[in-house]
């Protein structure tokens, strides 16, 4: 049998179900891997060794007792730190929540636990999920396992790095403007942003409530689908949760693996092909080759124009900061988290201002102030109001496009993983990483990123992602097309992570 950490989630579950390895052995292997490489990688903010081993032991006991186990029972998972976990530190990457232990579980945490999935710990992220590199974490910089001098994308960069570096076969991320898809792309793994409302937001620390959506990371499309199935579904505790069953994404992933896309119509989004420049050549090369693969699989390829996508970046960076300025008002130094300057002389309002000044990092402050500005009377119509109208036009572009085609494709990001520090001083240089992912965020439509190539344009070999977008509630189309593509890509090139370099380990040597 292969090394346990090399197995993907479906294989891991099969090994446990058949008794070839226990859940405790699988979990121990994952924890050992974290011990070996996380000094270098810095993917985890908190590792729950005891809790993980106890959860694994419970799965082994249930198996020994002959109880039925879910399809991911005993499989280890890395949880993004924006998701609240009862009894486990939850910071959302911010100093303002340092040391906070939530008194309850998010709905997705509960669903993960109920499925017998073993939560290894909490992963690093940009503070309050604001960023595209995970460098905005108040705690540490996470490295990309493909090249430790580079970022793992963001904001779910701890989760993407953990999966790509074989610390865990599965991870949960959240995506507000691309925070699952872009980190998946730049680390060579699969990441899916579900239809808005498909996965409960109850217990997610809110950034931008009309955009935030949790979703799965995996090293295969099927793994992502298996995790999607666990976390999706109606939740009465979230008023924006869709009160009907979603599509069968696992069946779609399995059907897609047959690698037959005859009868499928694929649209290339004109506005996301880098015609105006600004996209890396290696990204565009991989994208062109990916489209050729889709055509070889039998898909009909057409080009579709979505003219308002050009304004998605501007609309997003008004809407998300506006919602964040309102959501983050909850950090008032009263009910949880940090309190600064409470010396008997400072008023509540002064304590609030001192606390927020010390507790928030620069990107969070910038976005709160942009949002405060955009929502101010006198500016509201020109900024926030206008951005909401542009959002309508982007939704209409999608609707019109999906009358012509079944799915839309684009590169996931214009860029491969960049160097740590390269873009931190220039907020706009960071924001353009989300150029291709923002339209689906604003429209609430599902989109997946699947590895589609390796380029050496920036020096070392680095992965590129293909984004596949579908209409609302048609997440199954994303999984079907991604699985077909993955099958064809792997049969041509082998699995993309076969190309990832070994990481220097804590005990010396490389693995």
């Amino acid at each position, binding site marked *: 049998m292969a090394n346990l950490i090399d197995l993907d989630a479906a294989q891991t579950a099969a090994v446990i179900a058949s008794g070839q390895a226990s859940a405790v052995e699988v979990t121990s292997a994952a924890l050992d891997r974290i011990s070996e490489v996380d000094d270098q990688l810095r993917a985890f903010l908190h590792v729950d060794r005891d809790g993980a081993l106890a959860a694994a032991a419970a799965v082994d006991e249930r198996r020994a007792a002959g109880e039925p186990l879910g399809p991911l029972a005993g499989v280890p998972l890395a949880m993004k730190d924006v998701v609240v976990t009862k009894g486990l530190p939850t910071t959302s990457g911010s100093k303002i929540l340092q040391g906070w*232990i*939530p*008194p*309850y579980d998010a709905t997705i945490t509960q669903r993960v636990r109920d499925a017998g999935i073993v939560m290894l710990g909490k992963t690093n992220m940009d503070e309050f999920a604001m960023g595209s590199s995970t460098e905005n974490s108040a705690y540490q910089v996470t490295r990309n396992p493909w090249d430790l001098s580079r970022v793992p994308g963001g904001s779910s960069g701890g989760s993407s790095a953990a999966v790509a570096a074989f610390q865990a076969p599965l991870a949960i991320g959240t995506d507000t403007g691309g925070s699952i898809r872009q980190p998946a792309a730049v680390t060579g793994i699969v990441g899916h942003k579900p239809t*808005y*409302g498909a996965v409960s937001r109850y217990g997610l620390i809110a950034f931008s409530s*009309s955009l935030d959506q949790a979703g799965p990371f995996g090293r295969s499309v099927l793994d992502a689908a298996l995790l999607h199935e666990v976390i999706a579904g109606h939740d009465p505790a979230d008023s*924006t949760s*869709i009160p009907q069953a979603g599509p069968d994404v696992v069946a779609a992933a399995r059907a897609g693996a047959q690698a037959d896309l005859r009868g499928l119509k694929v649209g290339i989004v004109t506005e996301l092909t880098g015609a105006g420049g600004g996209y890396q050549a290696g990204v565009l090369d991989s994208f062109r080759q990916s489209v050729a693969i889709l055509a070889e699989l039998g898909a009909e390829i057409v080009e579709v124009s979505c003219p*308002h996508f050009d*304004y998605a*970046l*501007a609309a997003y*960076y*008004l809407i998300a900061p506006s919602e964040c*300025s309102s959501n983050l*008002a909850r950090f*008032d130094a*009263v*009910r*949880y*988290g940090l*309190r600064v300057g*409470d010396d008997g002389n*400072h*008023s*509540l*309002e002064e304590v*609030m*201002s001192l606390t*927020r*000044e010390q507790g*928030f990092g*620069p990107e969070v*402050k*910038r976005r*709160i*102030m*942009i949002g*405060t*500005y955009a929502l101010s009377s006198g500016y509201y*119509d*020109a*900024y926030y*109001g*206008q*951005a*909401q*109208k*542009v*959002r*309508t*036009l982007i*939704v209409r572009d999608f609707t019109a496009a999906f009358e012509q085609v079944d799915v839309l494709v684009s590169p996931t990001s214009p860029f491969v993983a960049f160097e740590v520090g390269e873009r931190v001083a220039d*907020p*706009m240089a960071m*924001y353009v990483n989300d150029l291709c992912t923002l339209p689906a965020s604003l*429209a*609430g439509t599902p989109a997946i990123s699947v590895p589609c190539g390796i380029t050496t344009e920036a020096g070392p070999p680095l992965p590129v992602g293909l984004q596949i977008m579908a209409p*609302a509630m048609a997440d199954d189309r994303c999984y079907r097309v991604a699985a077909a593509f993955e099958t064809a890509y792997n049969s041509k090139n082998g699995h993309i992570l076969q190309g990832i370099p070994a990481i220097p380990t804590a005990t010396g040597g490389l693995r």
Partner: protein
Amino acid sequence: MSAERPTLTRDEVAHLARLARLEVTAAELDLFAGQLEVILGSIARVGEVAAADIEPTSHAVPLQNVLRPDRIAASLPREAVLAGAPSVEDDRFRVPQILGEEE
């Protein structure tokens, strides 16, 4: 709707910081004034779109009021909630003074 390139003075940034309850430093004001002006200049592009007669979208899915049945359910124990508070007194959140001496 026309979008003139917005400007943002250091004083205006200080005002925004006050509204947002952020006790920013002088150095931050210098840094943020420049950065926020660049960001605003980019996002002001939304004004280029002719959208006067377009309905705004606040959520991608249609939202309705969702009411749950009015049934008593368990809530979190008081000590579990107060355990995360920065300061507690007599089983309550302790809050710094709200009114000044003269008020």
